[in-house]
Structures are given as structure tokens and as C-alpha cells.
């Protein structure tokens, strides 16, 4: 008996139609997809880290602050991985005891640079405690640079503003060094030589010294920020660039290092900045190239509060802080920093 195993004519027609479009697969750029979300992947990791820490610290409120100081410079061009350093696990974040020793107060800071296609930064060291602050910045030379500062607890940390200024200074200096020793750093990335260690040590020492010296003012701002966080998602952080002390739109493309959606969205509207909210974590948005005469950026928080962050040496500094909600709203801002649309971002 002859068996007809040829497909149904409709099926065959469908398969033929699909064959026609197979050639267009090449139009999908994998590298672009990967590059767009490398930063987001880092955010995920940070949040996972924080979630894990919250689980282990169940006696603390769920919104215990994760604060990181991060510097991101441009678009994943040059960097190095501190892969020789120990990897970070939630367990490492929580030692058996916290004596309050000075070395634990600001236990670690690490500097990272990433190289497109080379993978992701690896911390050279990590605090045993919660992170208290995160600052994000981009630089003018297209490279990605991250500085993360961990503080053991909020009560003993110093002023957020002071920390920001300190980080700005550190980063400005680092930026100078990067500009002058880029070849060295590129070599260091491959060889993992002492250059990397020197930079990390320098940044860590500067920040540690500053944080230790400025105890006191931090608590007030932390309290304000926590109040802000507790009201999320009704509260928003917005930002407006200031050029010569006058509010101006950020020039060029606005985008969020935290998420490529914002890049896609805002590229359609050149004057629109987009803040990507993850609860009270606000992925920052800024122009990719900070105009030379931009002097500072103002973050307008809820209830009339604001935070002014200087722009120094081409660095554009941004503060974010977050808790860990299941999903979060997102805001689209116009050139004046006004929210023009709200949406919901599904974090997981």
C-alpha cells in the first residue's frame, strides 16, 4: 500500500512562505541586541544581589537601601575586567558579625571598565554590608567605567551629597588618567597587571577617606530619601540639565544606561528624556555626550526636593536608589523634565 507522506497543501504553502523570509534573518543584529542590554544585565545582577541580601536579613524592612556608587562612561568601548578578583555571592555580603570597624564602614569600592564583547565587569572586592548609595555617570570618551561603593549601614555613612562630590572628584581624576593612559589600560585589561589595581586602590582610598570624614549629614538625606521611597510609585525623580544655571534640555540623544527601551523610545523624540523606574530605583537618562558647558544636573524629587549634582570634567553624575518591587512604573519626560507619559515596566 502506498503511503502519501507529503504534507498537507496548506502546510506546504505555509512552509514555502516562511522560506521566502529566511534570508531576512540577517537583518537582525545580535551584537546590537546584546550591547543594548549589557547594562541592564548588570542592573539585574545588582538587584538580585540586593534581593538575596534582603532575604538573608529578614529582620530588616524590605526597603533597606541598596546604595551603589557607579560610574558609567559612554558606550562599552574600552575596559578591563578584574576577573582575578573574587566573585560576589550573597553569602559574602553578610559576614557573621559586623563590628563597626573602620575597614567595614566603607568596606570596598571597585572600579570596573567593560570592553564590548569581552564580558562584564567583575568586582575586585565587595562590602560585607548593604550598599548605601549609587551614583552613575558617563564620560566623554565612549568608554564604560563603573565605581561601586558599598557602605555597611546607612546610619554610619556620610552625606550623600558629600559622597557625590567626592565621587565626582575621584571620577574626574580617573577620567584624566584614563585619557592619558588608555593604552596602558587596554594592556592591563589583557594582562591584568598592576595598573588596574592602582586605579582601584586610588578610588577606594579617596572615597573611604571622604566618607569617614563626613559623618553626620548623611542621615538627614537618607531619611528624606527613604520617605520618598516609601511613597513610590507616586513619587518621581526627574532631572533637568542646567547650562549656565539655566534649565535646558539635554542635547542629542537621551538614553538610559539602565535599559535600552529608553534608548529606543527617546531616540524618536530627540528632546525627550526617559527615566526608567524600578520602583524607586530610577534608571537614569542623559545625553550620550554631555555638552561642555553643562555645569550641573538637578534631580527634582518629590515634594519639591531636589538634588544638584555637579558635572565635572565631562562627567555627568546621577543618583539612583532603589527598593525591590515586583513591577514599577516608568516615566517619559519632555525636555523640561516634565512627565509627559507614564507606563508600567514589568521587571520580571
Amino acid at each position, binding site marked *: 500500500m502506498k503511503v502519501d507522506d507529503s504534507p498537507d497543501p496548506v502546510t506546504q504553502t505555509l512552509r514555502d512562505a516562511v522560506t521566502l523570509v529566511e534570508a531576512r534573518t540577517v537583518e537582525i543584529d545580535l551584537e546590537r541586541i546584546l550591547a543594548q*542590554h549589557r547594562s541592564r544585565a548588570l542592573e539585574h545582577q545588582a538587584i538580585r*544581589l540586593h534581593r538575596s541580601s534582603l532575604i538573608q536579613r529578614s529582620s530588616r524592612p524590605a526597603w533597606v537601601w541598596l546604595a551603589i556608587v557607579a560610574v558609567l562612561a559612554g558606550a562599552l568601548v574600552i575596559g578591563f575586567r578584574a576577573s582575578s578578583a573574587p566573585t560576589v555571592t550573597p553569602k559574602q555580603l553578610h559576614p557573621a558579625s559586623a563590628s563597626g570597624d573602620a575597614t567595614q564602614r566603607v568596606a570596598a569600592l571597585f572600579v570596573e571598565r567593560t570592553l564590548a564583547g569581552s564580558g562584564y565587569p567583575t568586582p575586585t572586592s565587595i562590602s560585607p554590608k548593604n550598599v548605601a548609595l549609587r551614583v552613575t555617570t558617563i564620560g566623554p570618551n565612549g568608554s564604560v567605567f563603573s565605581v561601586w561603593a558599598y557602605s555597611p549601614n546607612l546610619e554610619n555613612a556620610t552625606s550623600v551629597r558629600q559622597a557625590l562630590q567626592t565621587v565626582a572628584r575621584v571620577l574626574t581624576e580617573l577620567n584624566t588618567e584614563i585619557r592619558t593612559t588608555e593604552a596602558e589600560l587596554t594592556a592591563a585589561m589583557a594582562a591584568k597587571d598592576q595598573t588596574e589595581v592602582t586605579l582601584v586602590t586610588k578610588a577606594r582610598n579617596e572615597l573611604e577617606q571622604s566618607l569617614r570624614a563626613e559623618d553626620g549629614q548623611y542621615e538627614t538625606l537618607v531619611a528624606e530619601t527613604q520617605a520618598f521611597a516609601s511613597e513610590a510609585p507616586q513619587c518621581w525623580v526627574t532631572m533637568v540639565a542646567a547650562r549656565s544655571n539655566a534649565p535646558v534640555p539635554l542635547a542629542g540623544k537621551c538614553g538610559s544606561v539602565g535599559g535600552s527601551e529608553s534608548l529606543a523610545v527617546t531616540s524618536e523624540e530627540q528632546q525627550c528624556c526617559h527615566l526608567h523606574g524600578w520602583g524607586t530605583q530610577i534608571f537614569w537618562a542623559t545625553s550620550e555626550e554631555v555638552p561642555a558647558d553643562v555645569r550641573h544636573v538637578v534631580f527634582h524629587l518629590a515634594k519639591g526636593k531636589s538634588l544638584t549634582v555637579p558635572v565635572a570634567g565631562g562627567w555627568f553624575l546621577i543618583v539612583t536608589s532603589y527598593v525591590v518591587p515586583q513591577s514599577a512604573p516608568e516615566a517619559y519626560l519632555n525636555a523640561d523634565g516634565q512627565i509627559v507619559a507614564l507606563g508600567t515596566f514589568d521587571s520580571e
Partner: protein
Amino acid sequence: VEWSSLSLSEDEFRSFFERNVGQLVGLAYLWSGSQDDAVDLAQEALTRAWKRWESLSRHANPEAWVRRVLHNLCNDRWRTLKRERSIDAWKSTDQYVMATPVETDVASLVSRLAPKPRRALVLHDIVGLSVSEVASEMGANEGTVRSWLSRSRATLREQLLSDVKENP
């Protein structure tokens, strides 16, 4: 959570991408009815997959996840298209006119099927899933899937024949 796992994840995603991108473009084409949109929609689905790759890579069936996302994107695109065309038609004639795609190729015909039968047909005929696998992926029972497949094929067969008669 290990920071160094990120580069590993990227390698895994590259592999996932290579295995699935061709088929996803094909599915998007049949579900959206447009070659141009197919590329964009497949890229968007893959982008979303990468964005969640950390959790998705541990998913029992990431291919099914991304197909579901793709189908939702195609549906969204279709609804947007209908709404835009309806508005355009309303503006031009002062009457509500349900717009339909002007294209008459096979993908366009498929895209006119109801969402669930359309999804079932493509999963079965293009992805190559069995009826039970389609049922599992769509959360339907097998009898329903068979019904969708039968109706979809009948509708398409009729439309294809009609198209041949009108455009010999």
C-alpha cells in the same frame, strides 16, 4: 548570584539566538502578514528574551516563552494596525470602516485567522510541534487544538483557492 556568570549567559544566549532566529522571523511573518514587521517583531522578541535571559535560561522551555512573546507582539501590532486604519478610514469617510490588510499573500491570509487558531496552525505546521505539544504550549486541550487546526486549514484552503480564481 555570580557576576562572572554574565559572560556565560551571553554565550548561551548567542547559541539560543542562532538556533531560533530563523524560525522566529518565519513565525512573525505568518503571524503579522508583513516581512518588514516580521524582522522587527522577531528582533523585539529576542531583545526581550535577552533582557530576561538570566531567568529565562533556567526556564523549562525558553523557545516556547519567546514564541509566546512573539505572538503577543504580533497581536499587538495587528491591533494597532487595525486601529490606525480604522481611524484613517473614519477620517476620510466619516464612517467607521474595518480596515483589512491590502496584501493578499499567504502570510496576509494567515494573519487574518483568529489569533488562537492561527497560533496553533503555525506552531504545528512550521515549528513542528505535535498536537499535544501545541495544546501544552497554548494551555488548551488537544481536542480544541485539533478543531483549530482543522478550521484554520479549511479557511486557508478556501481563501487560497479563491485567491487563485481571482488572480489566475
